[in-house]
Each structure stands twice: as C-alpha cells, then as structure tokens.
C-alpha cells in the first residue's frame, strides 16, 4: 500500500509539469482552434539558450530561468508569425503542417548550435529528500509541483479575472463577435501565444532542472506529453489541462513501477487512445463539433 501512495505522489509530481505543458497547448488551441506542433521545440530553444548561459557564463538559476523563458517566448512568437498569423481562417491543417516544418527547423538549429547529445542544466535543489512518514519526497520534485500549481493558479486568475482574460475568452467563444465588440483579435492572439510560451518555458525549466540535462529529443517529448495531457484533460479547458497532466503522471508512475519504463510509455498512449475512443471531449472539455477546417 505504501508503494501505491508513493507512486501516486511521484506521479503527481511529474504530472504537474505535464499539466503546465498541457496548459500552454490548451491556451493556443483554445484561442485559435489550431494545433501547434512546434510548441515543444520552441520551449527547447529557450532551454538551449538557458543551458548555453549556464555552461558558458555559469549563470545562476534565476538568470537561467529568465533566459529560458525569454527564449521560449521569442521562439513561440517566431512560430506564431510564420505558421499561424499569415494563414487564412480555414487553413487549420496547413498551419499545423507548417508548425511541423518549423519543428524540424528549430530542432536542427538547436543541434547545430550545441552539437553534443546532452548538456547540463542547473539543478533545482540538491538537498536530501524529505521523508514524510514512510514516504520519500524529493525536494526538487516538490518545488516542481508547487511551482506548477502556483503558475496554473496565476494563469487561471489571469484568464478568469483580468481584462486580458475576458478578451481572450471572448475570442475563444466567438472570434467574429470578439471583433465586433472592439477586441484587437490579432494582438490578443499574439499575447496569448507569448503567455503559452512563457508557461511552457517554466514547465521546460522545471522538468530539465529535475533532469539536470537537456537533449534535442526534449522538443518532441514536450510536444507529445503536452498533447496527451491536454487530450485527456479536455480540449481548451484550463482545469482540464492540469488534471490531465496529473492523471498522466500518475498513470506513468504506476505503470513504470509495475512494468518498467518501456511499458510506461505504452500505458500513456493506451490511456490516451482509450480516452479518445470512449470520451473524445476529454474529462473536462466538451467534444469539438465544428469541423477541423481542412483548408481555405
């Protein structure tokens, strides 16, 4: 029984970073009904800048966070300008494939800049794990969980309490009506992209600080984990993204404990597949109705 709770705790910890990634995905998908396959790679660009600063200038964690965040936001805006802004209303699939092409570009750029396979990343905390009764809690995991929950609370407040959030939700509800009430939809989308990239940057930083290394595979990993967590949680639903992330973390932790790492990923995909086949809307989102536009 102790193992079960320990696994669940570990799962919740790692799941919190999935939740943040899913949150970033949901923000972009919610606002534009578009899938950004470059989401992970743009965070990786931020992380590579962060590790560059950490390795070359041996900068402290605060500087690395700032650089990672800024890098992720800049890369995110680059993706928005090239793949999503110029696309006509109907070209949903085209912008998704375009974001895939930019994923290739960003990944190769990162590999060229820093050709080694892995690069060190500043750790979050190096203290011994705390023990809470029979359970072991790694300090850096705790920081990741609290950081993730705090950030998602901030995003929730921003979306549901602020003027910016009101505008964003209006666009999500009905873009034409948003235009008609005088919202500058273009500018709001760019700000939403920046916000999502920033959230992704923090998630990336937390994950890589726990991992203490960054590889070019991180882009794909982040995109796929964020996507799975978003789909399980429910498209366009902010609480759903966090819940989906935590659930994915717990599923993975248990399957890793009982069946080993390979089977862990298999279970994650199985969970996603079952969720899609049985409840397409995900736990908290509602199923999409309007067709996923195929092109202008």
């Amino acid at each position, binding site marked *: 029984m102790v193992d079960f709770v320990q696994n669940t705790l570990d799962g919740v910890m790692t799941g919190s970073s999935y939740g943040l990634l899913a949150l970033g995905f949901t923000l972009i998908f919610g606002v534009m009904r578009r*899938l950004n*396959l470059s989401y992970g790679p743009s965070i990786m660009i931020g992380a590579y800048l962060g590790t560059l600063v950490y390795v070359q200038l041996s900068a402290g964690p605060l500087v690395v966070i700032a650089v990672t965040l800024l890098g992720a936001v800049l890369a995110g805006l680059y993706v928005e300008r*090239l*793949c999503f802004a*110029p*696309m*006509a*209303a*109907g*070209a949903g*699939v*085209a*912008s*998704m*494939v*375009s974001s*895939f*092409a*930019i*994923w*290739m*570009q*960003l*990944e*190769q*750029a990162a590999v*060229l800049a820093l050709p080694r396979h892995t690069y060190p990343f500043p750790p979050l905390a190096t203290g011994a794990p705390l023990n809470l009764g029979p359970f072991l809690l790694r300090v850096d995991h705790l920081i990741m969980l609290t950081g993730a929950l705090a950030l998602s609370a901030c995003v929730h407040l921003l979306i549901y309490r602020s003027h910016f959030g009101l505008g964003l939700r209006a666009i999500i509800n009905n873009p034409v009506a948003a235009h008609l009430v005088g919202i500058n939809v273009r500018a709001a989308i760019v700000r939403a992209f920046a916000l999502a990239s920033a959230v992704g940057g923090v998630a990336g930083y937390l994950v890589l600080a726990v991992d203490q290394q960054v590889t070019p595979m991180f882009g*794909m990993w982040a995109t*796929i984990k964020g*996507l*799975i967590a978003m*789909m399980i949680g429910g*498209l366009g639903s902010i609480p759903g993204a966090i819940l989906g992330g935590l659930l994915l973390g717990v599923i993975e932790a248990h399957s890793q404990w009982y069946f080993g790492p*390979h*089977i862990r*990923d*298999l279970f994650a*995909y*199985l969970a*996603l*597949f079952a969720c*899609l*086949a049985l409840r*397409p809307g995900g736990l908290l989102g509602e*199923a*999409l*109705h309007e*067709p*996923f536009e*195929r*092109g*202008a």
Partner: protein
Amino acid sequence: MDDYLVGVLSNIGVISFIALSAYLLLLIGAISFGQQAFFAIGAYAAGIATALWGWPLWLALGWGAAMGGVAAVLVGLPTLRLHGLYFAIATLAFAEMVRLLFEQFRYQVTIDGEPVGPNGTDGFRGIRYIFENDVGPLQFLALIYGLLAVVLAGLMLLERSRLGAAFRMIGEDPTLAALNGIAVARAQLLAAALAGALAGLGGGLYAHLTTYLEPRIFDVMLGVHGLAYGLIGGLGTALGPLIGVLIDIGMLESIRVFAGYRMIIFGGLVAVLLIVRPRGLLDERLVHRIGRACSGLFGRPRPDKNGAERKPA
C-alpha cells in the same frame, strides 16, 4: 547509375507509398499521424515471411500489405467516427503503441546456426532476400517503381470512379455525403484499409531494400512527414504527394552541400510554401483549371467561362 543515386531513387519510391497512404486518408478528410504504424507492420510481416519462412518476395509483399490493411481496419473501427482532430491524435497514439510493442516483440528462428528475426530494440537484421536470390539494386528499383506505377494507375482510376467521388464528398462534408446515400462508415473503413495496405506494401519494400529494421525507424517523424508530403504537393491528384516527396528528399539530396543546414532551409521553405498555397502546390483548384484547359485543347465542350467561385463559409 552509381549505387548512391539508385539508393536515393529507391528511398523516394519507398517513401512515396507512405505519402500516398496519408494522401488517401486526407481525401476523406481524415488527418492521420499514424501511417508509419502500418508501414512498420508491413515491413516486419514481409521481412519475417522471406527471412524466416522462406516465402517468395511477391507473396511476402502481399502478406505485408494485407497485414497493414487489417491493422488499419482494426484501428479505424473505433476512431474513424471521431472528430478530425481526435482521429489525428488517436492515430498518433496507436502508432506509438505499435512502435513500443515492436520494442518488446521477439520471434527468432535459428537458420544456419544463427538466430534470425526481430529481437526487440536490437532490431531485425538479415532480411537478405535480394542477396540470396541475386536481385540487383537496379532490378529492385524497377520492382519499386513498377509497383508504384500500378498503385498510381489504381489511384487515378479511383479518382474517376464513384468510390473516388464518394471519398471526396466525405472529405468535404460527411453529413452531406450521408444525405446523398453514401455509406460513410463503410467508405471510411475501405479508405483506411486501402491506405493501410499501401503503407504495408511500402513497408515490405523498405524491409527488403535496407535488410535491417528497428522500432525507432517507425516513430512519429515518418508519419508526420508522410502527411506533410500530401499537403505540400497538393491534394488535387495522386501526383501531389509524389511532388511533396520529390521536393523533400530531392531537395535534401540536392542541397547536400549545406549538410548541416538542410532541415533549417527545408523547414522554412515548407512554411513559406504553405502560406502561399495552404492547400499545396497541385491543389483542387489548379487541377480543375488544368482539366478545363486540357479539355479546351482537345476540343471537348468547355463549361461556361467564369465558373462560380465557392463563397467562403
């Protein structure tokens, strides 16, 4: 032709199968990130058939295609009714599951004192049919392009058949297609089966071309590339995806001089191309215009001059 050029052309031929497979599903409006799963199933099935069971090549390729088709139907049943985006993610999940299952799949037969056959992450070496039966690289290249020509002819015929029209109608609007008496579910499954078989056939050819398979080969990159070819080349006809493959691998090989920077240039190029032509180079509108131009040339009566443009939704 030197071996390297034959190698590149063979690669182009083999990848075209997965591009056509994704294209076929795009016709019915289904975006699949998972055709690489059926490519893998076809590759392993055909590889096992020749290397372990000693079947002749054509039977092994047929077997691979059949396995690809069956797998496509099995995964299509619960997912094809889903909304476009969910189907895309479901196919991605299924393909990754197949890849992870192949990492566990071990089935070896000792031949000639050596264990031969898939061995999990170590892959499946020794699919040496073309060496045992003295099939030269040029002969295998001819086989690839022969099969590709047959498939293309089939797809061109499909374009003009009632089934082709049904696929495109479902692609435009499934409810409208159903209202016009098309058995949408059955047609979707048929399209998925055909697409799965196409990818399986391509997989079988790939297995014998490289003589070596490994689960990591069949990850999401291959699937998304397959999808991208159709969208870059255009969905007007079956030639569109081939144009996409030519641009991709043709481009990658020709700008070899920027060895390290290929993907950077190519990625940027695709993004810009999709801005200018969101439905690809050879999209429906261009094909329609070419069709009208050709019909003008051959003196067939032309529809009225300014055909009504579709009013955007």
